[in-house]
């Protein structure tokens, strides 16, 4: 019997998701035993034209990580959608934009200036990459940047979402086990559009720290204090994103004294991650006078970055105004 086909692709991402997949240790042998890996640029040699030659729906499972930053990402997303039965937005970038999505705060010319004309780049002639260039041998193409980064489901239909930056190894193992059980007829797939490999609650729900009624007189930063090992970090004035973030990581960061930064994305009922955190933080500030409230808020150095570190491209507004206006 031929094995079902498996593919994994990276678009605008860091490669951490691939590492996370390899980090499932000997479980990777189960992947090999049950699947025929047909396309996985980081792990094996395959060409886009090989994928293009495949029959539609011939790949059973594709894990797609990374956001859609340029026309190459876009093309492969559409190609893999066509060739795959199950397309999973794998990791925070594909689900909600993640760190590459933070570029949506800036217009594209500023991104290019930062990349090619800041002090760290020796570029006196101001040479910029051209998407099409005439060489004596013929035209060469490199991918064209899009004005903003998009999430996978803003480009193609997505079957499942697997959040995390990167998804935790035990969650990946569980999902692989599930898919293998489905193949053997022992389990059923969750409904389309479901978030898999994560919990249904918030990080706070999984966090072991003690919680009281929260009142904050001052926000601080993790490097300025030695946090109490038992007490909720937010109560100690450390901006922790636990209240809005989906569970599934076993509250890994707060349990070792670091604030939750929100890599598992919005919890199940959260429509806009940043807005939920504005509501949460607003309700715990212990002041009623505008001046005093503003003094406390000054302790949040970069609120938009704090609230949208992983979620900007997937949020309601999707980008900063200057990035959107730059298209006009």
């Amino acid at each position, binding site marked *: 019997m031929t094995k079902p086909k498996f593919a994994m692709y990276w678009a605008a991402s860091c490669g951490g998701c691939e590492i996370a997949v390899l980090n499932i240790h000997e479980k990777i042998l189960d992947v090999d035993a049950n699947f025929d890996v047909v396309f996985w640029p980081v792990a094996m040699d395959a060409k886009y034209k090989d994928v293009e030659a495949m029959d539609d729906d011939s790949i059973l499972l594709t894990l797609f990580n990374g956001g859609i930053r340029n026309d190459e990402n876009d093309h492969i997303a559409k190609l893999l959608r066509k060739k795959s039965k199950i397309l999973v937005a794998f990791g925070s970038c594909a689900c909600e934009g993640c760190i590459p999505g933070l570029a949506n705060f800036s217009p594209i010319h500023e991104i290019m200036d930062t990349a090619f004309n800041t002090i760290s780049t020796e570029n006196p002639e101001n040479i910029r990459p051209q998407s099409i260039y005439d060489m004596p041998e013929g035209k060469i193409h490199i991918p064209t940047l899009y004005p903003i980064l998009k999430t996978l489901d803003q480009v193609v239909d997505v079957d499942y979402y697997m959040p995390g930056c990167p998804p935790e190894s035990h969650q990946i193992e569980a999902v692989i086990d599930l898919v293998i059980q489905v193949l053997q007829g022992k389990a059923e797939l969750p409904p389309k559009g479901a978030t898999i490999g994560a919990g249904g609650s918030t990080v706070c729900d999984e966090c072991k720290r003690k919680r009281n009624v929260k009142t904050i007189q001052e926000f601080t930063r993790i490097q300025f204090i030695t946090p109490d090992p038992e007490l909720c970090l937010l109560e100690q004035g450390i901006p922790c994103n636990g209240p809005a973030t989906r569970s599934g990581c076993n509250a890994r960061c707060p349990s070792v004294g670091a604030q939750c930064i929100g890599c598992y994305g919005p919890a199940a009922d959260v429509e806009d991650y940043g807005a939920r955190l504005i509501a949460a933080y607003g309700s715990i500030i212990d002041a009623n006078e*505008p001046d005093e409230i503003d003094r406390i808020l000054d302790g949040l150095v970069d609120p938009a970055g704090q609230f949208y570190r992983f979620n900007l491209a997937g949020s309601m507004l999707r*980008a900063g105004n200057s990035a959107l206006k730059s298209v006009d």
Partner: protein
Amino acid sequence: MNEETKPFEPTIIGFTCNWCSYRAADMAGTARMKYSPNVRLIRLMCSGRFDPTFAFQAFANGADGVLVSGCHPGDCHYINQNYKMLRRFLLMKRVLKQMDIEPGRIKLLWASAAEGAIFADEINKFVEQVRELGPLKWKENIIAIEQPMLEEVAV
């Protein structure tokens, strides 16, 4: 007048509380005070029910401004929820500013049930302020970004 010369009419979504500011709007109405028709009011039980998500959704769907209105400090029907809204509002204003949405596009207005005239007056001022800032065009800009990519689907 053709499209070009028509003055820009901003769309403003207003959130009012049931006990004070919505009644102020009601009073302005029953007293037949005229004010700009640009504000679409949505009644909440309390300004504390105002979730910043509402403002983000309004802007994402084409609003040019957002008004949040509640009972005067100390007068909240639910003891202190309008203070909660005030804190959320101030934090939201900072976040929107970082997203290059002018602070002038959002307004906080305290209005008691007796302040119909003040309510009408403040709305007129806010509408002029947003008109001055021009259209935000969030939805149009998102569609413009989608456009070239939609054409490529044909590949």
